[in-house]
């Protein structure tokens, strides 16, 4: 058989193999994600929450810090009514407006802290996983030491010396949470570094940055995205805890955590359930929906979960 004939035969083979285009990776991802109804609903809820929080001055019916002693007579919280759907607190501040402004705090802290910890964790994890040997040992031992710190005690100590602002709280939470991301990324890199396509990249003479950014990182993105979506609710809970205990966002700035601070007294003394229930409900809903979203992303990004 001549070369031409061979080439013709190969082309014929191709003609046979012309299959209808297969779904791209993102189309495939979307098909799998869409089936996860709970995650889809959660994504919609969270998008709405973002819009409301971003446009707080538009959506909030009142100034969140404006007290109204007419409304809360003798420091007695006003119950929900048509003009104040979530009622007021003991200073007569509109609870709905405070919940909306509080969402800003939670979301900003959640995203900022998680964002910083993902970036820092990915860098350290990538360096440790790619270089291995002593670098790996050093980075992972530092991570182990930090993981051994009781996180809340560390935050209490740090926050009593700084003035707690949204940024400092977020950064301090990032300091104690990047290690998990670093471990995850390091593990991914160790696995991917042994893959034949990474070896192929070395065989064609690709440089270390090219291998990291073209071969390893894109293939670690799935787990990183999942870690982020599960890291945000954890961060929100930490911030809430800090604010509730008085170490976090300081009044009068509204945060879901500090709104809960006085709620127990009001509930006990006046039966004012609305003071605690609404912020608490928001915390629970936000954390829950982020977790559902994380589950959905994990299933949809896992290449092992095929649609068929």
């Amino acid at each position, binding site marked *: 058989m001549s*070369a031409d004939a061979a080439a013709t035969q190969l082309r*014929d*083979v191709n003609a046979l193999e012309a*299959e209808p285009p297969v779904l791209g990776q993102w189309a495939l991802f979307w098909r799998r994600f869409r089936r996860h109804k709970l995650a889809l609903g959660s994504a919609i809820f969270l998008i709405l929450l973002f819009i409301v929080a971003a446009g707080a001055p538009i959506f909030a019916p009142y100034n969140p810090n404006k007290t109204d002693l007419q409304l809360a007579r003798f420091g007695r919280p006003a119950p929900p009514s048509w003009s104040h759907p979530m009622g007021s607190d003991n200073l007569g501040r509109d609870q709905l407006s405070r919940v909306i402004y509080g969402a800003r705090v939670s979301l900003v802290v959640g995203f900022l802290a998680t964002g910083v910890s993902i970036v820092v964790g990915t860098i350290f994890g990538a360096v440790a996983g790619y270089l291995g040997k002593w670098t790996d040992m050093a980075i992972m031992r530092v991570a182990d030491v930090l993981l051994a710190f009781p996180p809340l005690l560390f935050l209490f100590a740090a926050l009593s010396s700084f003035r707690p602002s949204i940024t400092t709280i977020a950064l301090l939470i990032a300091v104690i949470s990047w290690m998990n991301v670093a471990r995850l990324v390091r593990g991914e890199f160790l696995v991917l570094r042994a893959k034949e396509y990474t070896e192929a990249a070395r*065989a064609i003479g*690709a440089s270390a940055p090219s291998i990291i950014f073209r071969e390893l990182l894109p*293939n670690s993105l799935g787990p990183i995205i999942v870690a982020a979506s599960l890291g945000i609710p954890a961060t929100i809970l930490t911030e809430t805890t800090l604010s509730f205990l008085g170490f976090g966002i300081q009044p009068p700035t509204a945060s879901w955590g500090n709104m809960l601070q006085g709620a127990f007294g009001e509930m006990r003394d006046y039966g004012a359930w609305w003071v605690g229930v609404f912020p608490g409900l928001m915390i629970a809903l936000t954390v829950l929906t982020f977790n559902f979203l994380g589950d959905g992303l994990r299933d949809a990004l896992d290449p092992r979960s095929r649609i068929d």
Partner: protein
Amino acid sequence: MRDGSVIADIQSEDTPLLRVENLQTHFFGEGGVVRAVDDVTFDLRAGEVLGVVGESGSGKSVTALSVMRLIDSPPGRIIGGSITFDGDDVLSMTSNELRNLRGNQIAMIFQEPLTSLNPVFSIGDQIMEPLMLHQKLSSKEARDRATEMLARVGVPSPAERLKAYPHQLSGGMRQRAMIAMALSCNPKLLIADEPTTALDVSIQAQILELMKELQESYGSAMMFITHDLGVVNQMCDRVNVMYAGRIVEQGTTAQIFSSPKNPYTWGLFDCLPRIDEPQGIRLIPIAGQPPNLARPPSGCKFHPRCPYAFERCRVEEPPLFHISDGHTSRCWLYEGAADGARHRIEARRVGEIQTQPAPRTPILEVTDLRKHFPITRGVLQRTVGYVKAVDGISFTLHKGETLGLVGESGCGKSTAGRVVLRLLDPTSGSVMFHGQDLAKLDAKQLQDMRKRMQIIFQDPFSSLNPRRTVGSIVGQPIQLHKLAEGKEVGERVADILERVGLNPSHAGRYPHEFSGGQRQRIGIARAIAANPEFIVADEPVSALDVSIQAQIVNLLQDLQRDLGLSYIFIAHDLSVVRSVSDRVAVMYLGKIVEIGDNRGVYEDPLHPYTRALLSAVPSVGVDERGIGRSSRIVLQGDVPSPINPPSGCRFHTRCPYVFDTCRSVEPLLTELVPGHAVACHLYDSRYAGGAPDSAEPLRRRPPTVEAPAG
């Protein structure tokens, strides 16, 4: 049912042990209904060995799982037909009856014993469990029986091995344990699904011999599923050839192997590299690839790949036509004519590739190359020993030639390939390439050198980054070495894709959109993109089906001829190496034990190890049937660990001709015949006197003086 009228097979008076009629097992997925098994009918009589042969996706494993009712549901479901085992209707059995059926009446042996044995229970527990469950033996009786079974399958010191966990046994030993487990309840039917595919050829020979012997002494029937026609030839009485969920040819092994009557079966034989055929015979691949069973072609499922297809094949599916007693074929060529109105186009396999005896210019010279991996322990990573993966190998690669590197797993052949390319740094030794020692290049020089040497990997799935398009994968070496810029890169990529037989317009697609064979072509495209001079091909076809394998082998040979490439072709499959290599080096435990030209090594092997390997390859030749071939040398035991290799000659622990000198003195690679060197004391006049008489046939040559090997 029309098929029924033409099936002549079911006429024997004795009721078969297993009767499968019109079985249909379909899988219901989002991509549509996959008709994995579609209207399969066959009988299996007591004591008979039935081979089920076909490529992956042909439905052979699904047929076996259906018989045991082990189809995962959803997505799978047996939607039609009947399965009768020993007079009982399997499809209407309750779960209690099924439990009795599985393990007790029908036992199964799987391909990979490491994953089919439970890692947290000892071998003994796992063999005893079915005995206590099905045979109601006490634990004492079960233990005795398990010990007896392990001894029966050739596991040394069985009483102690009962306490071993699966990971503590070698692959061959695990498969023996699996067989002991399967046979412990004395099943009437044994289903073996590719039982030796994961094993080395010398271990495969042991296991096949054992299975045949046990099958004969226990009288069980056996359903033997495999893709390897050579294994079928050795083991089976009758054969079902399956394609796309259907049986396309049925007959006795003699009928199928001496006069196959189906174009697909012909294709299987024609695309198979054969160990008894000289190099240069071009394989005839089956065009295209197996159909997607969610969208099967109309008419005969094979017609898009069939060179004999005519109009009728495209519209109407043929039934199984009667050929002769017990021999049927699903092909319109045989309609109404038992002898076949037309005949197979014969003799298409001709030696078209001529090996140029041309001037042999060495391009790569490897001298005393070693790679030792340190074994470290504890927190401080103390080095406690070395795995001597490659331990002093020397060879020369000439321009335009293929050097085959063969050996069993763990012999260091893949490591050798990677050290030559400096993907691993050598422990010592030199690799001279264009007057430079690759082992001593610094990072910058090495990066520049990379465009002149490349690698092709075994696994077409893990060798391509799933997040990059084909164009980006193939274009990267071109950009990296600045062989083209801007739009030219895309044009080069298109050229290369076309050259390896891919559609250039698919450059924007991702690897997962391609089949295994196509992905291997992408890997080859990446390797040739930077115009290398030599390529290390590490098991490039062993993950592929035979029909696809032949396509890739031919492609590699065409590229070699057109681009003047040199290959180091690493493989465990001796037949493939025979068909592609100009010269062959045989490795054992990090050493080359024999090296020479293709004809010399295959037709006149010198080293006892080479002789044993070659004789262990199951052949498809009609006169090579049966396991008891007198010429067969079955090596005992496993390959020893490369951490503490045996003293003297490393092969002495398994060598049938071993004598005292072998245990203490290491043999050197010595050129015995021009261009053919061997490392064995049998050929050394100083020592050969001590050799056993059995080695006499090997010592017919006049011993030559020691000379360095080429």
